[in-house]
């Protein structure tokens, strides 16, 4: 395989002498090689073309920057306003990761509780669903009425959005431990705590990580939405507030710069969660295994 990928088009003589019947294999390898390159080149190329087209459109039509700024101006603003934007980003990140941390602890904790007692699950699962299906944008104003601390309010909002996928996935994972392994645990006289630690939690890990991947993005969205609702400036104002502020002042380039920062943060969070998931599962789980075909 390694030889095929590095040597380019294989010399005819060599292939003929080695294996004639492998023409299909070679074609498959060539296709895989093309796909590997295209996977990186195509999105980058599309992105570059989009940005160039955008730049051209704005310049050619003389569109004013308070309606649609050209990409180069957005980039300039990003650099120029970095002190303001980075401070705001830091605030948003703190809320995001704070909420994610509480979502992990709360989601996994509740899932363990649910898996240990069917009655608790029956009693409280509906509340989890209600919290999940009610749009955060309509709950957030209430939360800011009842909670004095703005930070606490933001954390609660982001947590409500983020915890459900972790709770639901982890519950599913804890309940999907192999029944023969459960029997084995029973046979060896394992305590409930030992069964949880040695069997249920490892079984739930892939499910939990799937939930974490979703929750990472959701906690960022939750934090931003809550900031929009909270809407006050001053100390501790995050990216959403900067976006609102810029829109009132028709500072559209800064809006774009802030939006790009948010998207970028979301991508980084997703990448980080995917990496974590890969590192934890690569040795044993089907999802992380590389196969020849």
């Amino acid at each position: 395989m390694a030889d095929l990928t590095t040597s380019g088009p294989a010399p005819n003589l060599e292939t003929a002498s080695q294996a004639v019947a492998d023409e299909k294999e070679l074609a498959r390898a060539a296709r895989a090689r093309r796909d590997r390159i295209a996977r990186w080149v195509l999105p980058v190329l599309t992105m570059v073309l989009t940005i160039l087209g955008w730049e051209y459109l704005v310049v050619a039509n003389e569109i004013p920057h308070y309606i649609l700024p050209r990409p180069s101006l957005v980039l300039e603003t990003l650099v120029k306003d970095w002190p303001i934007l980075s401070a705001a980003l830091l605030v948003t990140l703190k809320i995001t990761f704070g909420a994610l941390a509480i979502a992990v602890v709360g989601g996994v904790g509740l899932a363990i509780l649910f898996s240990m007692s069917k009655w608790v699950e029956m009693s409280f699962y509906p509340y989890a669903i209600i919290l999940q299906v009610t749009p955060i944008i309509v709950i957030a104003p209430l939360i800011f009425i009842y909670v004095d601390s703005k930070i606490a309010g933001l954390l609660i909002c982001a947590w409500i959005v983020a915890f459900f996928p972790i709770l639901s996935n982890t519950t599913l994972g804890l309940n999907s431990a192999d029944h023969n392994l459960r029997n084995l645990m029973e046979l060896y006289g394992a305590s409930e705590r030992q069964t949880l630690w040695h069997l249920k939690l490892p079984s739930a890990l892939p499910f939990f990580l799937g939930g974490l991947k979703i929750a990472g993005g959701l906690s960022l969205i939750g934090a931003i939405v809550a900031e929009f609702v909270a809407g006050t400036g001053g100390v501790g104002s995050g990216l959403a507030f900067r976006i609102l502020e810029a829109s009132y002042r028709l500072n559209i380039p800064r809006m774009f710069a802030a939006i790009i920062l948010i998207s970028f943060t979301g991508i980084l969070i997703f990448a980080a969660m995917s990496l974590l998931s890969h590192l934890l599962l690569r040795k044993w789980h089907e999802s992380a295994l590389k196969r020849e075909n």
Partner: protein
Amino acid sequence: MSLAAEAEISQAPLVSLRHIGKTFSNGTVALHDMSLDIQSGEFVSLLGPSGCGKSTVLRIIAGLGHATTGRMTWADGENGPAANAQDHHISFVFQEPTLMPWATVFGNVWLPLRLKGATKAEARDRVMEALAMVGLEAFETAYPRELSGGMKMRVSIARALVTQPRLLLMDEPFAALDEITRFKLNNDLLDLWQRFGFTVIFVTHSVFESVYLSNRIVVMAARPGRVVEDIPVNAPYPRGDEFRTSETYNAFCRTASESLHAAMAGSEDGHG
């Protein structure tokens, strides 16, 4: 070892089942009035068609299920099913290897000792000894997915043997393996049984496997699950390829096969 095992046979049975019945909550009668004595050191096969309750018997002996009626007595004087398989030094091998995919081969075999509080260092010697018994000491750091079906089953057997059980319960352990692997594992299992003198109750639906392995075949019938015949297989160990092709082997296969067919015909009459 096998001499010692034979000497023990005359003593009180290791476990004795008296009039065991099992009815599931949906009304299915899985077992009806089953009585069975297992002598220490025996290799007993429970042979029967699917639905004859052979796995149910195994689970009741292991303490994974409770009998609806009847009594179970152990050699140490205790009655009833095992509250904890450890009490009676029982190990169980399932039809699937039932390994933890997130743990290495070592980690999987360590589990029974770990649950009793043995640290990795404390368990190391015994785990490696058990792995050596099944010829997998070189694979301690491998993950189950890296192993073939036969090797996974070996790990499962090593995990069962690491607790040095007196009674090994096996529920169609080789049914999913190819014939070549199965023959090899049959021989290795017999070798371990002769060396260590534990008792085996082996559930199978293969006449040939039961004759090759056991010194006693208990033929069971379905609907309701019951014992129809108890066939002693008086052929010397060690058994090898010569035994597989011998006249004695064929004769026992014929006897067991006829008994099994009679049992199945009887159930069909009773059922339909």
